[in-house]
């Protein structure tokens, strides 16, 4: 459009030129016919014709400028002005690029996690069925899935008993379709002798048809496949199909084994489809009714899953009927579920605090990721927003200073009759142009930022499936951001710049600038300092949190330990054979050169996993409830010596204890103090579960020093360590190496393959990294926030420096007079410094006040310190004050070095 306009204008110009030339030529012709020489005729014609440029100008005026042409004109002019002052332009564009880039990167994660709709048909109609209670619901006898406990809102979960799913599905009137799904965990998949571990999702027969997605190959799971006794089939994810079968069409119909059970591949899902959880990407989809196939006792498992009305395991989503609101559906479904859950509560105790159904929008899938990341993302978004605000203030400040330098130019334009609005628009175009340049560069910065953030979030986890990218909504966000910032930082300086007294400005008298402008300058600087302090305090709090997490006493030695998991149960070993298999490997691993000690446990320490059970002690009344629970870890031989946990009393568990006839256990200090205060616990007995101690099967043979169990942040619970041979599936091996533990991985894999090639080693990690991964969020916050605070600090210092340097330059004359009247250099420097100290102190005071009121929002992110941690606040204030002094030193010195003679001549 604009190009076309330009082209038309050009065409008009040449047409006019031709028209005039033709007129002149005809005129000269006539004169020559009258007998005048060519030269004279030409001259006379031109003279008679009149002022050609004036004529053209008049014509152009008449054509008028379209607003687009005017914009292009402004842009060209703005571009030229920017090029004239490359330092200013570079600084402005760079700081904007960083600000906009950081915002875009964080927003792309918000988009991926919080906003993006599932790639299914009409995602807006989808709803998720959750339930909610105040305390732990006693009506739930068993559960396979997850629930969330929030201290403020209570307990919630999305898992339902299968009979409830069937009831809701059959009798609701609000949903056009309802489908169920459940996590199947990791399965051992083997095809043609090759094994690996895959993530699988159990889905109801109408899962795919309700979501309205199409298979990339083969067919979907249907209702016929999802009933007990149906030939077992699976649907593969597109990425797994590509990875494992190279996208071959022959894969359809092939037989595979999942935990040794035969399945047939029925189809492949569409490339963009990942299920209903944006945080997970299952490799396989399996019918719900195939779940018992993986159980040890299939009949028992099927009975529990499909008949037990108090066993919660199926997650439910549905599609709203057209013209049905979420509220109507909620009323309908909640009433149905209430009746159901009432009928399943058998005691009075269970009837208290029954689960209540809560319907939520499901357009962007189930919300496990949102739960984990939404609050951190909002905090990060607020931070990058503040950084962008600092960048804007910075550029506004620079523009104000530049407007002062351009006073004469603007005065000339105004005096020649340019409208004020026109000049403001011209200046605004310049700042929006700056913002767009910053935005373009910002998109590049955002690309880097997204890669960096993904890397930070994944932190060495292979299974990290969250992929943020620069999608169209994200780019639209960036565009809007650039436009807004451009207007934001440009408008006030532009209006200020055109509010000038034309006459003195034209005469280029160094008339003192209107005081309002200086006040604005200072206010911007104060505001920048306050925001920087806020960010620095946040960074200080997060860094202190990280360091207090790092200094948590583990109670064991985390260095040089290799971790990996094996699950031989999935390949058919059980009971004695399973224990023998693991012990055989244990013995083999011990012979690897470079390995000091080897042990195993049902899960690794501080990995977030744990198990609790009630404990009974003979002769003590059993107290039901959480109070009497203890944490359990099933361990292999030499666990304490491998992990370097000191044994305080008695002995540790050895090889013979694993399969021996007597059941023995080691307890930790906390357990000993809780259950056997002032007694020696060795030789005493305890049992698991309720009852009166009849099953007090375990004898305590040792007491170990307290060591962290599942988490760094929680207090060490009472723990009993029992031999792993007591009912175990998969185990985690721990190898203490002499050197780099990861150097052992190849040998370990080779040994496992020799013993049984069908059992893959998974979750290979080091103990140190495993622990770091559990504090990933704190680590990311500390690192990102430090970066952000550094950035903010730098920008504010640049801003302050620029403002002060400008102030000093503007006051050169005044300073000259002061010096001529006898003020010495020290006094001049202190005069300038006083002003800066005033600005700095005001900024810091405001920042402190705001921080005082807002740090409590960060409380849930902190560990080991209060939100008003004095050390963090003091440190941040100190750092900022030091940076400000640095920024001010040069302008103050420059002021004191002004030569009074030059300064006065300057006037």
């Amino acid at each position, binding site marked *: 459009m604009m190009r076309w306009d330009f082209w038309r204008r050009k065409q008009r110009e040449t047409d006019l030129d031709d*028209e005039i030339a033709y007129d002149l030529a005809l005129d000269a012709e006539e004169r020559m016919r009258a007998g005048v020489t060519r030269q004279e005729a030409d001259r006379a014609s031109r003279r008679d014709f009149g002022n050609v440029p*004036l004529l053209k100008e008049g*014509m152009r005026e008449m054509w008028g400028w379209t607003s687009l042409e005017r914009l292009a004109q402004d842009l060209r002019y703005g571009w030229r002005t920017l090029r004239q002052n490359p330092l200013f332009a570079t600084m402005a564009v760079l700081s904007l690029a960083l600000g906009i880039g950081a915002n875009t990167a964080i927003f792309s994660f918000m988009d991926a996690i919080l906003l993006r709709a599932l790639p299914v048909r009409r995602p807006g109609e989808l709803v998720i069925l959750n339930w909610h209670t105040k305390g732990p619901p006693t009506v739930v006898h068993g559960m396979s899935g997850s629930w969330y406990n929030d201290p403020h809102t209570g307990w919630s979960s999305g898992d339902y008993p299968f009979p409830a799913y069937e009831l809701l599905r059959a009798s609701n009137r609000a949903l056009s379709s309802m489908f169920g799904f459940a996590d199947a965990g990791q399965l051992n998949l083997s095809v043609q002798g090759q094994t690996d571990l895959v993530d699988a999702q159990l889905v109801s027969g109408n899962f795919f048809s309700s979501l309205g997605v199409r298979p990339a190959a083969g067919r979907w799971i249907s209702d016929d496949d999802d009933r007990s006794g149906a030939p077992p089939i699976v649907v593969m994810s597109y990425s797994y199909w590509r990875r494992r079968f190279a996208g071959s069409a022959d894969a359809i119909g092939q037989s595979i084994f999942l935990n040794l059970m035969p399945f047939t591949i029925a189809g492949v899902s569409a490339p963009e489809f990942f299920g209903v959880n944006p945080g997970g990407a299952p490799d396989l989809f399996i019918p719900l009714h195939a779940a018992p196939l993986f159980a040890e006792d299939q009949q028992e498992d099927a009975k529990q899953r499909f008949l037990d009305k108090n066993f919660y395991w199926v997650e439910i989503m549905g599609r709203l009927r057209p013209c049905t609101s979420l509220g109507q559906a909620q009323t309908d479904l909640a009433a149905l579920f209430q009746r159901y859950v009432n009928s399943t509560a058998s005691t009075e105790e269970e009837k208290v605090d029954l689960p209540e159904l809560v319907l939520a929008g499901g357009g962007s899938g189930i919300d496990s990721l949102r739960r984990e990341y939404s609050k951190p993302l909002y905090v990060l978004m607020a931070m990058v927003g503040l950084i962008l605000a600092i960048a804007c203030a910075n550029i506004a400040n620079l523009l104000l200073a530049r407007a002062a330098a351009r006073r004469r130019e603007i005065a000339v334009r105004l005096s020649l009759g340019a409208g004020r609005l026109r000049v403001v628009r011209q200046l605004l175009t310049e700042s929006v142009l700056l913002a767009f340049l910053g935005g373009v560069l910002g998109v590049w910065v955002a690309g880097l930022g997204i890669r960096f953030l993904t890397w930070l979030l994944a932190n060495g986890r292979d299974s990290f499936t969250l992929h943020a990218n620069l999608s169209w909504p994200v780019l639209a966000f960036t565009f809007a951001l650039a436009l807004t910032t451009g207007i934001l930082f440009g408008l006030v300086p532009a209006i200020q710049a055109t509010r000038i007294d034309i006459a003195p400005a034209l005469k280029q008298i160094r008339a003192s600038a209107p005081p309002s402008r200086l006040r604005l300058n200072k206010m911007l600087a104060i505001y920048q300092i306050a925001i920087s302090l806020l960010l620095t305090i946040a960074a200080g709090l997060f860094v202190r949190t990280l360091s207090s997490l790092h200094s948590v006493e583990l109670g064991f030695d985390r260095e040089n330990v290799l971790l990996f998991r094996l699950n031989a149960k999935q390949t058919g070993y059980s009971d004695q054979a399973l224990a023998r298999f693991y012990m055989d490997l244990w013995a083999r691993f011990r012979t690897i050169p470079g390995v000091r000690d080897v042990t195993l446990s049902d899960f690794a320490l501080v990995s977030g996993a744990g198990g609790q059970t009630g404990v009974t002690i003979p002769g003590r009344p059993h107290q039901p409830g959480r109070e009497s629970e203890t944490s359990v870890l099933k361990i292999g031989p030499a666990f304490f010596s491998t992990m370097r946990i000191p044994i305080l009393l008695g002995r540790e568990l050895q090889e013979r204890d694993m399969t021996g006839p007597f059941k023995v256990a080691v307890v930790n200090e906390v357990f000993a103090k809780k259950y056997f205060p002032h007694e020696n616990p060795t030789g005493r007995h305890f049992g698991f579960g309720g009852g009166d101690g009849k099953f007090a099967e375990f004898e305590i043979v040792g007491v170990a020093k307290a060591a962290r169990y599942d988490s760094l942040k929680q207090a060490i619970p009472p723990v009993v360590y029992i031999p792993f041979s007591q009912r175990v599936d998969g185990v985690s091996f721990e190898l203490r190496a002499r050197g780099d533990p990861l150097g052992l991985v190849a040998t370990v894999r080779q040994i496992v393959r020799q013993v049984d090639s069908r059992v893959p080693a998974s979750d290979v990690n080091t103990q140190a990294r495993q622990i770091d991964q559990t504090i990933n969020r704190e680590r990311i916050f500390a690192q990102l926030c430090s970066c952000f605070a550094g950035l903010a600090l730098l920008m504010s210092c640049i801003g302050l420096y620029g403002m002060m340097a400008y102030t000093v330059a503007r006051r050169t004359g005044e300073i000259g007079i002061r010096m001529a009247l006898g003020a010495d250099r020290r006094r001049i420097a202190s005069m300038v410094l006083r002003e800066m100290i005033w600005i700095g102190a005001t900024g810091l005071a405001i920042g402190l006040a705001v921080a005082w009121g807002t740090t409590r929002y960060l409380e849930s992110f902190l560990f080991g310190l209060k939100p008003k941690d004095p050390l963090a606040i003091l440190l941040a204030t100190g750092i900022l004050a030091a940076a400000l002094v640095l920024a001010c030193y040069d302008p103050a010195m420059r002021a004191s070095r002004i030569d009074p003679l030059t300064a006065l001549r300057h006037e």
Partner: protein
Amino acid sequence: MVHNNPGENRIELLQGTLDMLILRTLQWGPQHGHGVGQAIRQSSADLLQIERGSLYPALHRLEARGLITSEWKASDLNRRAKYYRLTAAGKKQLVAEQSKWKLLVRTIARVMRPA
């Protein structure tokens, strides 16, 4: 805008009459800018000389109002020349202007009639 024929009998063109003169000139057929100027001069017996500084803006203004259209043609001088032509709307306008003009002349003549 004031138009005169320097040195000789000066006639000042009334506001808005240039447009009418142009339309009138073009009644005889398409003509280029120079030709329009010449025709007005000749038919006024050299009493009216239209300055190009007024003529061309007037032509372009009339064209923008849709009263005349233009067309580029190769002319006798082997140059590109822009020929203006009356449109239907222009013809209508000319009729209207003419009657208005006649009314104006009659009215003014009546006022100025020697007593």
